[in-house]
């Protein structure tokens, strides 16, 4: 019964998305307040029905109703309750329903927090969002319905993929989706501005918090995924340049470019058409990314092709959404010429560089991810692209970007002289070089020039990020949240670079075999396997070893790595035993039984690895602080908007 109710609610949600789109767009076009009000109601109604539909699917999972095909495929009577809820988005159909729920929730958010915007603008944005959710709802109903019945019902389910049975991965997709889908809001704003033919600083000020929130969630989502891969794949790597990861990283890079470009649009009325293009691209890449991941034209060129109906729908939807937006762009963007000038050395220039380099990095990844497909299409040689390509090419745009960041943060708008900051930046650079030498050569030993370069960049950025708020505070100037947010986010980036550089330069790995009672030395620590035991989990059996780690005779930690075999899918999974410390991880993963009581063990020493995820978290925190800025809450009068548009009001 619940499945049918959920299905019905989903149909109703789809039906409501159509008036949302129509009344939203046309109500604004013909200036009919009643229609605009109707669009707002439709948003609320659609949200209620989508939520209900999602709740129904969760309920059938909770009940383990194996007469529902999707439940039978992704759950099992032994699956713990928590993972039954996570299993809702464990595969294609349910994750699309989650996507839709997130989508309508964002629309509800726009409807609720748009008090400071003119009604027409809100109405158009909601109209565009209505079109998008209509497309998604239709996609689910026609090709990916999670409520289909299975008759006769399966006696038991095939269980959730054991790789996904992990707390971090259970919340990773929702985070990622909130980010992906969040970029539909700047997208809708961009389309609305083009329809209206008006784009000014006030517009940028409305969009900025939405773009930043989406970016924050995407940052957290990607970091969670990386963290999960680190401890769950048993390999100790934190980024694999896998197409799935690339698919989430591309919208992040463009989203980062977008929030910087929006700054220039808000403060100086510049880069308008560029900002529009980035808004469109960020969401397009999100769309592309999700579909590549879930039905995958790349990862499994396979799944995309295996259901041509699904693939064709996706492609048509992409074509309509993105093609429509870009067509509108080709027609309307010439309207948005900026007349404000800026000198070659100014914050505008630095932001422009930042944008070009970020877009360049995205292009590097996009080309690497899709290149084999293009070559195939031309019937040319098959070419392989692996991590070596990404690792080398990604640094080409990223290294200059990081080095331009420090002066960029201190450049003034319009024309920067650097008179006042030249000295402090130079001092910081010298300090950064010294620190980099101390950390690399002094603490860990000489490795390579790139290690020093990476650490220098990180310390320089960190220093430059701190100088501005500190000097403002000492001079008693006001310290707006947006400035603190910017500093915190850039400091987070510096932390990330420290982590990534150090761990890649100084990680130590070894594989060896141990029996209970034996011990081994690695990276200055002694690892002793004290015992082996069998552990029985709710839906798996495991062999667990206890490894005591000591240094100079003193106990540092006891870890319990496991080798699990899940009963239904028979997959062997590695649960690494990790001793986490602020400046290093000790990582023990079990390999294979080698006969007798001996097991192969992988021991790893990972210096500063925590800084990678901590850095990402700090970046996201910076975004959170920035959106708390007072000016986003202020109601903007029409006069002020006009003045800003004329470029008279610059900060």
């Amino acid at each position, binding site marked *: 019964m619940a499945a049918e109710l959920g299905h019905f609610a989903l149909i109703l949600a789809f039906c409501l998305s159509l008036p949302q789109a129509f009344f939203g767009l046309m109500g604004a076009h013909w200036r009919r307040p009643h229609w605009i009000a109707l669009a707002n109601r439709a948003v609320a109604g659609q949200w209620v029905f989508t939520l209900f539909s999602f709740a129904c699917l969760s309920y059938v999972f909770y009940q383990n109703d194996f007469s529902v095909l999707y439940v039978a495929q992704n759950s099992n009577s032994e699956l713990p309750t928590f993972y039954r809820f996570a299993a809702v988005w464990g595969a294609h159909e349910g994750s699309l329903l989650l996507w839709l729920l997130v989508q309508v929730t964002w629309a509800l958010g726009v409807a609720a927090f748009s008090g400071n915007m003119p009604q027409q603008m809100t109405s158009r944005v909601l109209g565009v969002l209505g079109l998008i959710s209509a497309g998604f709802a239709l996609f689910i109903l026609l090709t990916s319905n999670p409520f289909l019945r299975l008759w006769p019902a399966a006696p038991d389910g095939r269980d959730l993929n054991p790789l996904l049975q992990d707390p971090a991965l259970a919340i990773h997709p929702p985070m990622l989706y909130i980010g992906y889908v969040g970029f539909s809001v700047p997208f809708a704003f961009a389309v609305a501005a083009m329809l209206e033919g008006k784009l000014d600083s006030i517009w940028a000020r409305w969009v900025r918090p939405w773009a930043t929130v989406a970016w924050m969630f995407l940052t957290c989502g990607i970091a969670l995924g990386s963290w999960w891969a680190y401890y769950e794949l048993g390999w100790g790597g934190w980024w694999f340049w896998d197409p799935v990861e690339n698919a989430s990283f591309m919208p992040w890079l463009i989203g980062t470019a977008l929030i910087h470009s929006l700054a220039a649009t808000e403060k100086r009325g510049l880069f308008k058409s560029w900002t529009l293009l980035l808004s469109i691209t960020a969401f397009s890449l999100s769309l592309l990314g999700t579909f590549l991941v879930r039905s995958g034209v790349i990862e499994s060129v396979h799944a995309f092709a295996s259901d041509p109906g699904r693939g064709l729908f996706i492609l048509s939807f992409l074509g309509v959404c993105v093609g429509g937006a870009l067509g509108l762009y080709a027609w309307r963007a010439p309207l948005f010429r900026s007349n404000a000038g800026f000198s070659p050395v100014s914050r505008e220039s630095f932001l422009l560089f930042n944008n070009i380099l970020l877009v360049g990095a995205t292009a590097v990844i996009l080309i690497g991810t899709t290149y084999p497909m293009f070559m195939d*299409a031309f019937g040319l040689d098959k070419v392989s692209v692996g991590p070596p390509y990404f690792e080398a090419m990604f640094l080409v745009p990223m290294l200059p970007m990081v080095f331009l960041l420090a002066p960029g943060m201190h450049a003034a708008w319009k024309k920067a002289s650097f008179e006042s900051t030249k000295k402090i930046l130079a001092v910081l650079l010298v300090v950064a070089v010294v620190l980099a030498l101390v950390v690399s050569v002094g603490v860990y030993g000489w490795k390579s020039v790139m290690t020093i370069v990476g650490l220098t960049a990180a310390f320089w950025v960190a220093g430059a990020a701190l100088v501005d708020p500190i000097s403002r505070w000492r001079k008693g100037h006001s310290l707006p949240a947006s400035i603190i947010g910017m500093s915190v986010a850039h400091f987070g980036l510096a932390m990330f670079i420290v982590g990534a550089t150090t761990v890649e330069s100084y990680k130590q790995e070894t594989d060896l075999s141990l029996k209970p009672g034996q011990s081994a030395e690695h990276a200055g620590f002694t690892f002793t396997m004290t015992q082996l035991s069998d552990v029985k989990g709710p839906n798996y059996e495991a062999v667990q070893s206890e490894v005591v780690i000591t240094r100079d005779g003193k106990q540092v930690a006891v870890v319990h790595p496991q080798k699990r075999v899940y009963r239904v899918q028979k997959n062997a999974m590695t649960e690494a035993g990790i001793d986490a410390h602020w400046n290093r991880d000790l990582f023990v993963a079990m390999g294979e039984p080698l006969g007798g009581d001996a097991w192969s063990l992988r021991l790893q020493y990972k210096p500063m690895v925590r800084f990678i995820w901590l850095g990402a978290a700090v970046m996201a925190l910076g975004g959170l602080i920035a959106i708390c800025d007072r000016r986003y809450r202020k109601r903007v009068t029409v006069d002020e908007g006009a003045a800003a548009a004329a470029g008279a009001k610059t900060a």
Partner: protein
Amino acid sequence: MLKYLVPIGLFAALVGFLYFGLGRDKQTLPSPLIGKSAPVFELTRLEDPAKTFSNAELAGKPYVLNVWGTWCVGCRQEHGALLEIARRGEVPIVGLNWNDDREAALGWLQQLGNPYAVTAFDGEGRAAIDWGVYGAPETFLVGANGTVIKKHIAPLTVEIWEQEFVPLLPQAKAGSP
């Protein structure tokens, strides 16, 4: 004016390619290699850079060639299935370790178990290009007469093995395509 048309032009090209990719069902579309003789490679052995291995040594015997790398999550996923297939011993599995790091690959096999009768190390991806490898993991079935009989892209499962490979084994052993 024209510059504003660039984005939509690029996008149209992308959609064109995606449409093209959609039309080509990569899993059922036979690889150009099917029915032709398997490209011969001579590479160093994974465990010992001093020793070489060539698939010419296997002439007269059917074998499975599995392309993998430690950087490939799909390979991690199919590893259990490969171990199971190797345990059944119907046909030997030759590993082609592609674009990888020798140390890491050896560690991987030690940790996860080694399903391969022999593993060739293709650090520069030369053999992989000859074989038309699109992305790891890919699995080929080569008959006793040296012709490629089947290609599977994406992680292998025991189910796929039983449904798509096992029925071809008699043909592979007989050697006629």
